[in-house]
């Protein structure tokens, strides 16, 4: 596997939710790729379309939402127009999910062994004995004791549940794992443990990952590249070092400034203004209402993504392509 091989490619993805009062444009022309063994962080504030993009990649956009346009390629194969049966084979084999909200992502009335087991059984013919050994070794991989095997979700702590989800996600050694805010709703210490578990698993299996989150600090520690979304648009993508050292898009700058610092007290800037109504976005740049550097020419068209540095793309007219 070549190091630069693109495991996942999202090309010109448009997702809209069709409500009685107009279509909500939750993802507009989103482009994204993930290379082998890479973790890409997808960040942005609540409602910016991060989870919509994740659900679109999984082909699980819930009605009234629909993928209007675009391709999602896993190892070069477009999965957008697959039938339900074909899609089932791709799911979990190639494309696994670590869900948001550790509390509710396991079925409360099934034992851990049943929930981990049926994911494996749905894709492989495996004997009962092998299945048990497999599940136990997966639990061991994420640092959970063997007794978890026979437990119900309500008998586990939030962090343990999230580690069960991680174990489940890597069960079939998928090409890519989508982690939707894997550490939100956990306390800081447990967040650390879960993040560490994720990194361990990633290092051992060399799996590629998209990690969604709004915790910039956590992202900085875990991901290789960061993709920033605002109001359904991808506004900046780049290697984590250059994004943090030199954020280009005004929104990214605000996001990074909003990371609280122990050394200095600074006013919070990011709350200035609200996101526009996603049903009728303004012509021009999506960030025009909140941007501190807005100019008349910003209001004409959504700026194209330009490469402002090595692998560092930004959608803002204040920058020129290299």
């Amino acid at each position: 596997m070549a190091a630069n091989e693109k495991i996942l490619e999202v090309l010109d993805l448009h997702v809209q939710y069709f409500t009685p009062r107009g279509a909500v444009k939750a993802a507009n022309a989103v482009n994204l790729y993930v290379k082998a063994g890479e973790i890409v962080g997808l960040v942005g504030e609540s409602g910016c379309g991060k989870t919509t993009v994740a659900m679109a990649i999984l082909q699980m956009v819930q009605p009234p939402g629909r993928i209007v346009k675009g391709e999602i390629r896993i190892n070069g194969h477009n999965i957008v127009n697959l039938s339900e049966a074909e899609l089932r084979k791709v799911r979990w084999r190639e494309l696994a999910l670590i869900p948001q909200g550790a509390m509710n992502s396991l079925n409360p009335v099934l034992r851990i062994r049943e929930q981990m087991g049926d994911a494996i059984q749905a894709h492989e013919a495996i004997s009962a004995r092998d299945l048990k050994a497999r599940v136990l070794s997966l639990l061991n991989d994420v640092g959970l004791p063997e007794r978890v095997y026979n437990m119900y979700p309500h008998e586990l702590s939030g962090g343990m549940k999230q580690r069960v989800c991680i174990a489940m996600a890597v069960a079939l050694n998928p090409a890519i794992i989508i982690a939707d805010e894997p550490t939100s709703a956990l306390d800081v210490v447990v967040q650390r443990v879960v993040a560490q578990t994720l990194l361990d698993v990633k290092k051992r299996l060399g799996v590629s990952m998209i990690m969604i989150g709004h915790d910039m600090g956590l992202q900085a520690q875990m991901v290789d590249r960061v993709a920033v979304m605002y109001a359904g648009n991808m506004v900046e993508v780049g290697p984590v070092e250059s994004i943090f050292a030199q954020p280009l898009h005004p929104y990214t700058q605000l996001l990074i400034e909003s990371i609280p610092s122990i050394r200095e007290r600074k006013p919070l800037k990011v709350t200035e203004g609200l996101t526009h109504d996603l049903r009728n976005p303004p012509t021009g740049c999506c960030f025009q209402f909140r941007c501190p550097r807005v100019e008349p020419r910003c209001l004409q068209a959504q700026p194209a993504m330009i490469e402002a540095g090595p692998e560092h793309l930004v959608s803002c007219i204040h920058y020129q392509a290299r």
Partner: protein
Amino acid sequence: MGGLTKEYVLQRVLMWFLTIWIGVTLTFAIPRMGKGDPVSVIVSRMMQRQGYVENANEIIESYKRRFGLNDPIMVQYIRYLGNVVRFDYGYSLTRFPTPAGEIVRPALPWTLGLLIVASTLSFGVGVTVGALMGWRKTPAWLQNILPASLTFTSIPYFMFGILLIFVFAFWLKILPATGGYSRDVDPAFNWTFISDVLQHAILPLFSIVVTSMGGWALGMRGLMIGVNNEDYFLLAQAKGLSPTRVFFRYGIRNAILPALTAFALGLGGLISGSTLVEWIFAYPGTGYVLYRSITALDYSVMQNICNLMIIITATGVLALDLLNPLIDPRITFKKSAAS
């Protein structure tokens, strides 16, 4: 740990006793709170029949002594409780030498059969229909058809029963209108009798099932829609499980838990509703006997049937209560774990 704990079972059985005791006490108290007493009623009926009864007051006195109606209320109550435990309700007041139990006992299998089949059918069908209506992956044609099955939900049992009799017995003449079995068929364990009984049971059964399943279906639909949006339901789909497995293990399995509780609570209503249905169809069950005993003021038969109904309902609820922890591991009864 989930499952049946000793404390849980004990608690439920205790509740069962308590429910029956309160119910039985009420059937003791209510007739005594009323104005008339059964003995005067019997005597006045004799007077109606014969025009004049010479020593009416003496007859009333002797009856009262015989039935112990002059004893202090507590003594009567204790004696009554003893009788209830022995299922002995004394003589029927209207068919005097026959004990009440002998009138009620032959009616019981009819009612039990009707109720058990009707309630399981209405719950089973209702829950399935509701779950299919609430599931996103249900084929569109099915989702369009299913709501039609709820059309009759808003009609009361007995009205629907009359409608059924009119259509199927008088108009189409394909099913018998009333009774438990035809007069010309001898009750015996053979095919003619069984098929005759089944034919007679279709309409009463149908009227209960069709009118009561809609409630379960609507409730289940709501529960299922809720489950549709649960994270674990989405995760199950993301895992690439087959739709049927997602539907049963992650959908119905979870959505049915509150529905079962509602079912346990609704058993009483179903039983009282079936009383009316039995009366409409002249079905030889306890409901029919109860109706006749009420119109004839036959207190001992009334008490016998009411108590039986209380015991049946409480037992049904107990059975469902004991089933609950087996299917929902989160339910358990522990004094300490109050969170």
